[in-house]
């Protein structure tokens, strides 16, 4: 089995299932009808509701959902072996992940562009909407913490990457100034931006930046506070713009390189059922794999993004499939690239770092053995820059084999890719958290005036999420934080899926088999994640703070299930209440 065949198999599976399952969802369940105006037309306001060209919308939606997450997750999941990872990346995505994204967008389209959270509130109870909010908040805080930890690990292993990331910020700011203040020609500005990015990479080489782990966390804290307080034209917009070029190149070059290289898979396909991943303890494939791969195959946040803005810009109903389902499958392609790259070149990376590995008690050569891999993979990657590090190093060696250029080039490029997206996630995440913070404490508003005002003070609203994330990250445990984030994220997805299941049920037009299958998948997901959370609580050594988060997630999941159950029972009366959701 080599990288070319594997990747081609993956692409074929995705294509076939898109055309078969995806199309059948579109036709039979959603009943996508181009004669029905989408909210982009019926509520057109040229600001939020404006129809976009499907390619433009696809690009934008994809760039929003494919950040650093589809890299981190699969990189960690390599502990189970690459076949194990790919199974979930392929089939979890096709049957659940992409379905989730697609149906969330279409449900929103049919509800005048309202968010999935709003829809949940209508389908179930108002407090369900509030639950979504809290879940989203927990998910984001954990995500930022996990990103902060992982990025710090990468920066410590590669001070030149750290420096390059800082220089990239400078490059982005200069680009922003050129385009915004000086208003230079767009094409020229874009080219200059790309040149500046290359300059940043070069400068990174020359001026490596070594700071301690905790030092980096503090840097990230101040970065989050500062970046999210700036006007967007200075940093966020130009950086996000340049990021989209990096993403396209990274993915396309990765796919091309893998197919070209035809490299052998060096690491094991299956290591063991319960390798040491989460908190260093044996982690069973079921129910833990969704928590690890998370956004690589399925992500609740995509539902928020999709029903937040994407649905308001959909031109025709039939374009929803390529944007929603297709978008998620493309992210799955990215995850596949990550997995296959590490599987083929990870061992090489480990061998070249055998000195550092032996310092932490890992024998590089033995990682070839499946059982040894399972036991020591997560430990081993700690020495090469964490999950982000193992990917970028492997990517570099992939380039070397496929294109014959120095491994440094590929590593540097993918490091820029990974850090750029991660830092952008921190910036946008903090902005959203500022808003969500006040929403989360809304129930307090009616009761405790002073307490509410104290908690929702503007400065606190910005500082607290950042502080929480950094506090969580203090313990250096990305292998604890990431699964905790995964749990919240997957539960959010389960909640979304259950909500759209209710919607599909009410449509009445979908064939029973399909509906039952969707509900079954949603239920299975809920149960899996729930089991995963319980397992986490009892099997994984973690800080009190993290446990607190997990307990909260469990409680919310139960309340949510209860609300869903009650709504399921009342479906017939709901049908009467909301006749507009039933299309002829």
């Amino acid at each position: 089995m080599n990288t070319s065949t594997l990747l081609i198999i993956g692409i074929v599976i995705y294509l076939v299932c898109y055309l078969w399952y995806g199309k059948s969802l579109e036709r039979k369940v959603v009943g996508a009808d181009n004669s029905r105006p989408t909210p982009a037309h019926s509520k057109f306001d040229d600001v939020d509701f404006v129809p976009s060209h499907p390619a433009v919308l696809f690009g934008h939606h994809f760039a929003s959902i494919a950040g650093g997450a589809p890299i981190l997750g699969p990189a960690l999941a390599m502990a189970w072996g690459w076949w194990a990872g790919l199974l979930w990346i392929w089939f979890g995505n096709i049957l659940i992940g992409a379905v989730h994204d697609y149906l969330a967008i279409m449900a929103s389209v049919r509800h005048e562009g309202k968010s999935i959270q709003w829809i949940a509130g209508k389908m179930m109870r108002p407090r369900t909407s509030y639950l979504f909010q809290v879940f989203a908040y927990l998910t984001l805080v954990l995500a930022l913490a996990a990103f902060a930890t992982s990025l710090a690990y990468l920066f410590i292993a590669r001070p030149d990457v750290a420096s390059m990331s800082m220089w990239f910020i400078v490059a982005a700011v200069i680009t922003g100034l050129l385009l915004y203040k000086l208003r230079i020609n767009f094409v020229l500005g874009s080219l200059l931006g790309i040149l500046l990015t290359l300059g940043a990479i070069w400068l990174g080489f020359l001026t490596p930046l070594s700071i301690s782990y905790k030092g980096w966390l503090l840097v990230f804290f101040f970065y989050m506070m500062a970046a999210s307080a700036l006007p967007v034209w200075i940093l966020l917009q130009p950086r996000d713009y340049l990021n989209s070029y990096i993403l396209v190149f990274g993915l396309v070059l990765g796919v091309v390189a893998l197919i070209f290289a035809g490299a052998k898979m060096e690491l094991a396909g299956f290591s063991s059922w319960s390798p040491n991943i989460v908190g260093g303890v044996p982690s069973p494939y079921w129910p833990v794999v969704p928590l690890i791969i998370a956004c690589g195959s399925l992500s609740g946040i995509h539902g928020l993004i999709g029903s937040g803005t994407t649905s308001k810009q959909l031109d025709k109903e039939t374009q929803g499939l390529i944007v929603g389902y297709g978008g998620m499958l493309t992210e799955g392609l990215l995850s596949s690239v990550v997995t296959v790259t590490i599987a083929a070149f990870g061992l090489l990376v480990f061998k070249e770092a055998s000195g550092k590995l032996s310092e932490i008690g890992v024998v590089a050569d033995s990682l070839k053995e499946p059982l040894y891999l399972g036991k020591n993979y997560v430990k081993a990657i700690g020495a090469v820059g964490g999950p982000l590090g193992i990917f970028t190093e492997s990517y570099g060696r992939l380039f070397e084999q496929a294109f014959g250029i120095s491994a440094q080039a590929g590593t540097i490029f993918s490091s820029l890719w990974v850090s750029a997206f991660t830092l952008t996630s921190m910036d946008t995440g903090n902005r959203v958290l500022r808003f969500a913070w006040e929403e989360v404490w809304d129930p307090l508003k009616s009761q405790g005036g002073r307490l509410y005002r104290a908690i929702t003070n503007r400065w606190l609203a910005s500082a607290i999420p950042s502080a929480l994330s950094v506090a969580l990250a203090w313990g250096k445990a990305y292998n604890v934080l990431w699964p905790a984030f995964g749990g919240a994220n997957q539960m959010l997805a389960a909640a979304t899926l259950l909500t759209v299941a209710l919607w599909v049920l009410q449509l009445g037009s979908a064939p029973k088999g399909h509906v039952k299958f969707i509900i079954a998948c949603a239920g299975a997901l809920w149960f899996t994640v729930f089991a995963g959370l319980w397992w986490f609580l009892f099997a994984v050594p973690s800080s009190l703070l993290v446990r607190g988060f997990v307990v909260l997630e469990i409680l919310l999941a139960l309340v949510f299930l209860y609300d869903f159950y009650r709504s399921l029972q009342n479906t017939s009366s709901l049908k009467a209440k909301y006749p507009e959701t039933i299309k002829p």
Partner: protein
Amino acid sequence: MGKGGTGKTTISSALARALSSKGKDVLAVSLDPAHNLGDVLGCSLGSEPKKIDDHLAAFELNLDEQVQRFVEEKLRQMRPLYGNLQIFNADKILDALKQSPGMEEFAILEAIGEISAFAEKCDAVVLDTPPTGMTVRVLSLPDITLLWVAELVKLRSKILDRRAYIQNIERTHLETDPGDDIVMAELRRYKIEIEATRSFLLGEGSSIFLVLQADKLSVSETERTIRKLDSNGYRIGACFINRASKGEGRTFLYDSCGLSNLMELYDEIPWIELPDLGSDISDPQSLLDLGDVICGFLDAGDAR
């Protein structure tokens, strides 16, 4: 300006009469809703300047009419431009706007602005103001408004900058070129007008005269007023102590109501004592005599 009943109208009229008798062209305006100017000057006044004799014209500002006029005009301008929007029924807007806080103060300020344009033609303008509270608010209005306009201009230019950025990239032509944003132009125009009104009120040639009587309430209000006006940069030309006592009881009276302290505290302001004219006030000659007395104290020609 001063507390109600202290004799503002009398003094304003006297001053106006005296100045005009000396050959200066005077415009007397009553901004006081109580509208006693006409009574004191001895002829009924309307909302348009009316010539009373050779050098004296006067009118009484109709506040309601002023407000109505502006609101109606703006609404009329609005309809053809945005008739396709779902706008409130014009009547409803009118009512809402008339009730809007600060509307009366605004109307007075605008009226003063109009008067200041008029003032070129006269040698002197005498304004009989509404009761102190409202007058103080009106006088602080220019500064507050300028601050607010500055904020709005800042925000508007941020908005225009971003529109220009998007236009530059998308190369689309919006109906309104951000370069000549109407709102920005209007904000700037308003700023200039307010600044003109401000310099009219605070300038070299204008003075504020406070009228008070020797009683506790009047004195304490005057003190507050002086402080407030001071902080806004206004110069107080003189304080008229109306119906002033003479003789023995004077010192005692002034001490007990705090007036002596006040006069000491602000000894740079001329404190002018005017006698009680009693019921003779409506007699034109008495008014003129009073006015001459006032002018004598003031060096006629400074007052505007």
